[in-house]
C-alpha cells in the first residue's frame, strides 16, 4: 500500500489550541447544525435557567476534536470510530485545547485517547477514536 512509513507510534502528537469560543460562533454553529436550543443562543433565557447563562453546544467541542482527528489522520487515514463523553459545561470565552495520545497501532489501525481541555486544564470531553488506513480502491 506504500504507507509503511506512516506511523504515529512513539510520536508526540501536537495539541490543537482553538480560538476562544464566541457567542457569534454559537449562533454560527446553531445555524450550521440546526440545533437552535435557546440555552446556546438566548442569553436572557439562559440567565434565568438553572445554568445561569449560555453554554456551548457539546457537539461544537466534539467538532473541535473531529477537526483534530482529521488533522491527525491526514490523507492516509480516516476516522473509523469516534466516541466521547461530555464531562463539563463550556461557556463563551472558554479556550479549548485538544490533545491525543496513541494507545496502540498495528496493521494500519491506530487507537487514540482524546481529551478536550478548557483553559483551567479541566477535561470537558474525554474520548477515544480509531483511525483506519484509507483503502486504495473500492470507494467511489
Amino acid at each position, binding site marked *: 500500500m506504500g504507507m509503511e512509513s506512516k506511523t504515529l507510534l512513539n510520536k508526540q502528537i501536537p495539541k490543537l489550541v482553538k480560538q476562544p469560543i464566541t457567542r457569534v*460562533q454559537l449562533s454560527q454553529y446553531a445555524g450550521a*447544525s440546526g440545533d437552535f436550543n435557546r*440555552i446556546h443562543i438566548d442569553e436572557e433565557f439562559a440567565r434565568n435557567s438553572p445554568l445561569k447563562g449560555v453554554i456551548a453546544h457539546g457537539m461544537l467541542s466534539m467538532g473541535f476534536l*473531529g*477537526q483534530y482527528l482529521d488533522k491527525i489522520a491526514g490523507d492516509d487515514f480516516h*476516522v473509523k470510530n*469516534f466516541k*466521547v463523553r461530555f464531562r463539563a459545561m463550556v461557556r463563551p470565552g472558554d479556550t479549548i485545547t485538544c490533545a491525543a495520545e496513541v494507545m496502540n497501532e498495528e496493521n494500519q489501525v491506530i487507537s487514540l485517547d482524546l481529551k478536550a481541555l478548557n483553559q483551567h486544564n479541566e477535561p470537558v470531553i474525554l474520548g477515544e477514536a480509531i483511525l483506519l488506513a484509507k483503502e*486504495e480502491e473500492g470507494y467511489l
Partner: protein
Amino acid sequence: MFKDRIGKQSNKVKNVVERGAVKKFAEAIGDLDPIYFDEETGENSRYKANLAPPTFPRTFDYGDIEGLNLPNKGLIHGEQTFHYERPLRVGEEVFCFAKVKNYFEKKGNFGEMGFLVIENYGEDVSGALIFSSTSTVVISEAVRKVLVK
C-alpha cells in the same frame, strides 16, 4: 415513559451532503481544512473527492420516531459516538433514520435520571451502511415530571 419506545424507528429520509452546508459547518467549528470545500484539494486527495467533517451527520434529518416527544429544554447530552464504514463524500445522497436503542433510569445526584439512547443511521442508495451514531441523552426527574403532565 420512554421504555415502551425501545426498538421504534423512524422512516428513512433522503439527505444530501450539500457543499455549502459542509463549508458552513466547518467554518462554525473554525476548521478551514480545504479537504472539506476546495475542489482541487478534493480531486488531488486519495479519494478524489471533498469529504465531510466527522461530526457532520449531526446536521441530517433522521425523521420522527412515532410517540417520542423530547422536551426542548433540560436535556443533557451525555455521550456521543460515530462509527464510519467509510468517509462521507460531499455531494452524495444519504438515507437517514433513527431508532430508540435503549432507555433506563438510574439514581444520581439529582434524583432518578433517565438515559435515552438513540441510534442514527446513514445508508447509501443501495442500502449499504455509511455511518451510524449513538447519542445518550440524560433527562432529569424534574423534566420528566413536566413531560407527564
